């Protein structure tokens, strides 16, 4: 099982700021924070506009449809573990 690793630079920055390495609990918080902030970047204004008003797309069958994206499921490992 692979784990999401925070970059070494972050650990160095932490040590520079506080004089000690982050605890396991802090590392968990930071990993969760990373995923949450990444999702804020992914679900951007374009996505939210399409979520509300749809977006016209000429689909692979040549028919134009107005698509309304919905994330029905999100299956993920706990990156903070």
């Amino acid at each position: 099982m692979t784990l999401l690793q925070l970059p070494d630079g972050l650990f160095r920055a932490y040590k520079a700021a506080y004089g000690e390495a982050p605890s396991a609990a802090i590392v968990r918080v930071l990993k969760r924070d990373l995923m949450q902030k990444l999702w804020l970047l992914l679900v951007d204004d374009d996505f939210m506009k399409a979520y509300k008003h749809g977006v016209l797309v000429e689909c692979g069958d040549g028919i134009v449809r107005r698509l309304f994206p919905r994330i029905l499921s999100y299956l993920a490992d706990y990156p903070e573990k």
Partner: protein
Amino acid sequence: MQQQPPPAAHSFDTMPNRFGVFRRYTTVPQHDPEEGLTLDDFADGSSHIRTPPDPREQHPLRPLGSALPGLVQSAMGVAAKSYAPFLNWSVFKLMQWQYNGTSTKSEAQLQRLIDEVLTDKRFRKKDLVGCSVKREKKRLDQYSNNGGPFDTADGWREGSVTLHLPKARVKHTSESAAPSYTITGIWMRNFMEVLKAGYKDPVAGKFHHIPFSLFRSRSTPEDPDAPPERLWSEVYNANAMLREHDELQAQPRQPEDAPDVEYVIAPLLVYSDSTRLANFGTASLWPIYNFFASLTKYLRLKPSMFAAHHLAYIPSVSRRGLPLALLVANSS
């Protein structure tokens, strides 16, 4: 959960198939996405004899975006002269065969090797003297590390996330006043570009845009009025999807749309897990990827369909781009 929703005012039943299974639509689809699908489309065991796949649906680099296949095409054009990054035509064609999208080399694949490589007059045995597959793969990796598969034309951009560093029992006036660290080298695509690319793809001709209730007829000569049995198999015959679709149809339409423009839910299944990273041999990136639930799971889960569309990669150990060859191996 309601087992047998009463037929809606405008419901439409399809002809039952030989198992008595039929679909009940409240919105009539513009065509049947399952038309023309045969057993071959669902079963692709390497020992099966089957018709060759549609090459338009078979591009292994497609999950990374539409520009990459073009890039490979132009690289092939360049390769006509230089065969870059490989040394000569023979090595290039052999490596191309290795990465042509099917992970199991079937009889048909072997035939392609014979027809398209070994019997071609440009193929020269002496070109392969001293050829090491390992070294040629390395060449491919270096090529992808230099330019990288994350092309901006496919909506790939390098992003960064700033984390504020907390410490127990240390107070800051605000979160922004706490020491921070910015994680760079996050590769991500515009979600809407991923969605549009997926729906423009020829495979989208097989999408069930219109959800339906699936039934099996139980009527017999002895009991002609036996109620049908509701079946469940896919997102697009689930009640939640039917409800979302009906709610959408009840919403006011955009005034600029022609009356025949279909309004449909684009159901997305998003994954982020490291389990597949083990296949890479190097756990350097943490992926987020997306499947379209409108495509039947029997096709979606076939590695040869390349139905996963990549949304983002978080650097985990190494900052370097993932070698192209490894991405191809993981693109199912």
